[in-house]
């Protein structure tokens, strides 16, 4: 990524942004720091004055056991036994102790560095595990000295990333004590092309007899112990006079932590990167925080993968530089120490992607939180995730490969993972943008008590996350042209499973064929192939974790939904052409707008988008429901049309309505005559069947808007106040909402769905999930889609590419957004609100908060944010929504890291009837939106069969719920699942349980005394049974 691609319209630094940055800086707890300082001084004094009478052979690792201290290399006794040195005796020599304030390079504010005296070190101790063993002895000795005077001493993994148990540190009452030896060897000795660790000493002679191999990783680990004090001192010295840079560093660190980068981008690395900029003169003392942040972001975004870069102005020889770039993905060198040795290409790619998303938002007040504060769960960052379980015993056959440069089992597994990453890149790089392997730890291995053995992990559980590209499902892996050298290599790589294929452009290429059609299964098969065939691992070690099961029926379902959406869209386009070309009607059709979720696949096609066929023989062109028989649901897709201008409409809304209805009759006639379509007019709409799908055509007449506006104006002129609550005011608002705001919003949603292919399926899943939680109808359909848009296009994060990531971000958004304190602002990404507009919107929100509904969603068509949330959801329902979203997130987390894969979709969509006071059981025949065994198909084009408009948009359960709320809104709430739910949950309002005897509150109550009435639940349930005849089969009151 080049930095010149970054937008340059810079937002000037504002006070507000500066305040925000300074405000989020870590609060220095002076007491705590002082306490740590005292501890550090105490350690210094105790160690310097100690007189320990110890003289042992350095190979005797179990010496410390008698003092209840376990040497950190205890489990590597064999490897230590295989070493040799000219100074074999270990004894206590008073070391040099340095106490250092570390403001930038670490979260710990005070640290202690103890130098291992050079007298203890032999002249070739940099070889094998001599130095680590001696360092361990020295640590044990210090631990023994401190034990009596210090409350708590622990070992902690050391190294630049604090993840290396071989080079452990001590944690003494919260203060980290490092052990280093700057005179171990010259730094050149640890260049990557030199072998300092013979694999034979670690794993025995039988495999590695005489093998001398480069050990770049081990060298870096050793070198860290040589240079750590020097490096940290230098970095701190540079950073000390630059408080702004320190603040920027802190912000950057929290950004990276929130996005789960902390494992590899150590504070040291980030500080060094910043110091490099300071030394280059790019960052100076007087710069504002925004400038500094921008410089750092730009620097990281443009960090080239190919160059070897240096902290200071030093250069290595070209050949050595070459070695570095061969062995490490990223290189930031300081005296032969590569600070970025642990960073992989993929991590770098992901980080750059995140920073690029954040960069243009720097300086804005309202995007500060999404950039620096908000934390998203790890699994929500990836589009596809898999769980990998590796036991070191599985790698035994490959130990020759992964044993090199490894000290213990954990290293072997890490080497394997690195190799796996490379292999995945070789085999499926066209399918993903980046991937990352995260370790899932059940417990913290980074610190352990001094009387315990150091962790020796034989197994690891990992999470592999992919960010997919459009090629993810590609059924072919296309190789090079046939008969070339590359082709041979390709065949070898794929173990001769590849075949030759001829393409449309006459190329003949090597190809591996995975499936007939694009499918999610392809990527799974490739990765399984890599693990099984290339690494000889069992198939069970990898399990994909997804939202929907990949069973054939689930895939067929998805396919069906997709086809339905395409069918609706195609029928709509055809209808548009028909309407526009319609001749002989008084006014021509000028505009046609489709207003329906079916057009973009956001409405589950339950049971089908096609019109139900009718067997009734009658002359009528439409079907009406028969008594006692409820037909399955048929949707009608709403289409708004506009007609050419005419001045003859008159000034009366009712007259226009009547004229329009006679126009419907005319259009219907023409549609029947000219296009042989089935068309039935009613007073307010016209129903047409096109390609088997019912459309509801509504004429939108702007003349009505003018009349309504005039009415309101008259009212205003007459001096009336509170126009909003007057009849004309309300009519105008309603008309505007229905015929202006909604269509415009639908248009934005439609175009969003085109640019985000998985949008429709995410909305569908969301709707089904809401249904399963019996929350159907509690959120307006527009709000449902807007929430998904908000989750997908959230500022400051990389847009998701699959249902998995978008749904998990949606749940995250619902459960973390502070609904009562902030509005949710939805940007469609095309044009977004400016900082000033945002600030006005938020100000207005705060002023009006007391009278605003619990959920406020602001978008272009609704700047107050209440158009679709005025009635619903109520506060209590919103709270429940938040709670169930949290639960669902936990379920997703369990799915990602749990031992067994679950059928997540089924678990998410399981109904739980336990919380409700009473349950209404529905007649199965009354549930008309459900999946059916037989798929409805469009009728074949046959002039003999005349299709009829079926019963459309009639869902008795919807009607029942409406009437239930209408009747019992004072005493109870009702919860149902629109999509095939068989039950309605009833909650009685607790405040209605007992009320004072008043005529105004007596409904549905029974007198228990002269002064109190009690809720008469059986009466309510009986009423439900009476009004629900034919829909309700039974009502069941739960025991109190």
């Amino acid at each position, binding site marked *: 990524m080049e930095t010149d691609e970054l937008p340059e319209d810079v937002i000037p630094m504002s006070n507000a942004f500066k305040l925000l940055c300074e405000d989020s800086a870590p609060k220095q707890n002076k007491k705590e720091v002082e306490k740590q300082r005292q501890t550090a001084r105490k350690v210094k004094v105790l160690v310097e004055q100690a007189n320990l009478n110890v003289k042992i052979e350095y190979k005797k690792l179990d010496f410390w056991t008698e003092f209840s201290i376990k040497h950190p290399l205890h489990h590597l006794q064999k490897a230590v036994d295989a070493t040799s040195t000219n100074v074999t005796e270990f004894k206590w020599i008073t070391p040099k102790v340095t106490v250092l304030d570390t403001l930038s390079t670490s979260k710990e504010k005070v640290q202690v560095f103890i130098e291992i005296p050079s007298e203890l070190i032999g002249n070739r101790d940099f070889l094998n595990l001599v130095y680590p063993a001696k360092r361990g002895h020295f640590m044990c000795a210090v631990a023994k000295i401190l034990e009596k005077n210090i409350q708590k001493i622990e070992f902690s993994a050391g190294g630049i990333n604090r993840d290396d148990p071989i080079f452990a540190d001590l944690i003494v009452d919260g203060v980290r004590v490092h052990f280093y030896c700057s005179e171990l060897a010259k730094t050149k000795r640890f260049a990557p092309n030199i072998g300092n660790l013979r694999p034979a000493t670690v794993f025995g002679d039988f495999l590695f007899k005489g093998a001398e191999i480069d050990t770049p990783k081990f060298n870096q680990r050793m070198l860290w112990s040589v240079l750590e004090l020097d490096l940290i001192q230098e970095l701190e010295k540079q950073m000390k006079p630059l408080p702004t840079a320190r603040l920027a560093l802190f912000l950057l660190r929290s950004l990276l932590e929130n996005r789960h980068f902390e494992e590899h981008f150590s504070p040291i690395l980030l500080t060094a990167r910043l110091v490099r900029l300071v030394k280059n003169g790019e960052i100076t003392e007087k710069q504002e925080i925004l400038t500094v942040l921008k410089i750092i972001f730009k620097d990281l975004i443009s960090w080239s993968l190919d160059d070897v870069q240096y902290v200071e102005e030093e250069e290595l020889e070209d050949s050595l530089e070459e070695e570095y770039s061969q062995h490490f993905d990223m290189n930031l060198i300081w005296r032969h120490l590569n600070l970025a040795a642990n960073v992989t290409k993929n991590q770098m790619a992901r980080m750059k992607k995140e920073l690029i998303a954040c960069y243009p938002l720097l300086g804005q007040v309202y995007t500060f939180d999404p950039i620096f504060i908000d934390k998203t769960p790890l699994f929500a960052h990836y589009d596809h995730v898999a769980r990998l379980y590796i036991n070191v015993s599985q790698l035994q056959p490959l130990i020759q490969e992964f044993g090199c440069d490894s000290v213990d089992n954990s290293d072997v597994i890490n080497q394997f993972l690195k190799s796996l990453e490379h292999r995945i890149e070789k085999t499926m790089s066209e399918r993903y943008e980046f991937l990352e392997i995260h370790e899932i730890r059940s417990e913290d291995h980074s610190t352990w008590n001094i009387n315990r053995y150091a962790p020796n992990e034989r197994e690891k559980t990992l999470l592999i996350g992919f960010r997919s590209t459009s090629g993810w499902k590609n059924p072919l892996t296309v190789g090079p042209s046939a008969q070339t050298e590359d082709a041979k290599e390709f065949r070898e790589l794929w173990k001769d499973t590849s075949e030759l294929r001829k393409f449309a452009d006459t190329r003949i290429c090597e190809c591996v064929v995975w499936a007939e059609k694009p499918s999610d299964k392809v990527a799974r098969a490739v990765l399984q192939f890599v693990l099984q065939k290339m690494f000889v691992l069992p198939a069970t070690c990898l399990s994909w974790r997804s939202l929907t099961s990949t069973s054939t029926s689930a895939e067929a379902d998805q396919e069906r939904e997709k086809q339905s959406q395409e069918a609706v869209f195609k029928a709509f386009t055809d209808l548009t052409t028909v309407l526009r070309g319609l001749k002989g009607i008084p006014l021509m059709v000028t505009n046609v707008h489709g207003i329906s979720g079916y057009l973009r696949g956001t409405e589950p096609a339950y049971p089908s988008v096609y019109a139900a066929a009718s067997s009734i023989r009658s002359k009528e062109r439409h079907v009406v429901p028969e008594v006692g028989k409820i037909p399955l649901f048929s949707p009608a897709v709403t289409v708004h049309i506009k007609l050419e201008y005419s001045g003859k409409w008159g000034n009366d809304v009712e007259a226009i309505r009547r004229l329009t209805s006679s126009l419907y009759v005319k259009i219907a006639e023409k549609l029947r005559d000219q296009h042989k379509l089935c068309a039935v*007019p009613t007073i307010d709409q016209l129903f047409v069947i096109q390609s088997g799908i019912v459309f509801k055509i509504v004429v939108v007449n702007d003349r009505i808007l003018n009349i309504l506006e005039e009415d309101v104006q008259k009212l205003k002129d007459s001096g009336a106040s509170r126009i909003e609550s007057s009849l004309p005011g309300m009519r105008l608002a309603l008309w505007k909402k229905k015929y202006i705001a909604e269509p415009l919003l639908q248009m934005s949603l439609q175009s969003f769905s085109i640019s985000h292919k998985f949008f429709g399926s995410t909305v569908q899943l969301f709707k089904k999930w809401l249904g399963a939680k019996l929350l159907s109808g509690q959120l307006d359909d527009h709000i449902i889609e807007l929430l998904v848009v908000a989750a997908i296009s959230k500022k400051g994060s990389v847009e998701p590419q699959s249902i998995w990531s978008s749904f998990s971000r949606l749940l995250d958004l619902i459960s973390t957004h*502070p609904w009562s304190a902030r509005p949710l602002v939805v940007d469609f990404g095309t044009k977004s609100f400016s900082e000033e507009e945002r600030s006005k919107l938020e100000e207005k929100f705060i002023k009006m908060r007391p009278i605003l509904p619990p959920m406020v969603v602001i978008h272009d068509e609704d700047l107050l944010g209440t158009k679709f949330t005025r009635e619903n959801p109520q506060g209590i329902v919103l709270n429940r929504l938040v709670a169930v979203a949290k639960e669902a997130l936990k379920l997703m987390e369990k799915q990602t890291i749990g031992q067994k894969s679950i059928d997540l979709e089924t678990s998410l969509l399981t109904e739980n009837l336990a919380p409700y006071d009473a349950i209404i059981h529905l007649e199965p025949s009354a549930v008309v939106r459900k999946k059916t065994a037989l798929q409805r198909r469009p009728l074949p084009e046959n002039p003999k069969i005349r299709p009829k408009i079926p019963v459309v948009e009639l869902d008795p359960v919807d009607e029942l719920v409406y009437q239930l709320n209408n009747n019992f809104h004072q005493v109870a709430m009702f919860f149902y699942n629109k999509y095939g739910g068989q039950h309605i949950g009833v909650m009685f309002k607790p405040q209605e349980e007992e009320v004072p005897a008043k005529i105004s509150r007596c409904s549905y109550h029974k007198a228990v005394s002269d002064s109190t009435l009690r809720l008469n639940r059986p009466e309510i349930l009986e009423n439900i049974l009476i009004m629900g005849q034919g*829909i309700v089969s039974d009502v069941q009151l739960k025991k109190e």
Partner: protein
Amino acid sequence: MDCYSLRYLRFRIGGKYLTERHLFLKKDPSKENSIIVSNIPSFVGEDVILAIINQFAPFEVEESFTQRSNASDNSLSQGQLTMSITFLKPEAVIQSLALCQDVGPFTITDFLEEPEFPSVLNDCTALYGKLFPSEEQIQEMADTYVERYDAEQAEARKEAKRKYSEPDEDGWITVTKAKKAAKSMKLKKEDVPLIGGLSGKKKKVDLAYYTFQIKKNRQEKAQELLKKFEEDRKRITQLKQARNFKPM
């Protein structure tokens, strides 16, 4: 007995529905000889209630009507209803309130010949059928309305015309102010005279000449900055509060 207190009357629906329910009765303080009856299921008719009351308080009823429903759409065919009954004689009120708690429970179906209650399903299917009048009907409805509308419009126009031309009963003719055809003069930029031009106010030249002006300006600027800073701070506190907010 305090006749303003809330009294109840036990009843049940009958048939399958045998839950005991209470009607609530109370003297209407705002109307003579009247009682209010509440918690009447909407599917039970007014006549039935009157018949029940007649069972233990056989007095002549002057007037009865349904006051309101507790349904959120205020439809009188949904929810629980409240009814007002006015008797001819004042003792009817006293007797009905005195006795109501001791009688019953009455069964609604006993008062009906064919007990059948409305249901959501029947309502909505019936309503659906009504949505589809025949094309001729639609056309006819449109034609009649438009005809009537045209007639009304013509009448209104005539009426208006008459008002302006002929004197009414009192001999007045409505006159309106004739519109003035005054057009605003448009000037091009270069036509605007430089000094003392058409724009009324003189532009204030911001030239700090005296020391006190310089001082004042500086102070004003500082004030402004301070104000803006305060605003920013407020905004940020709000943001921070929202951040710490835990929805659950």
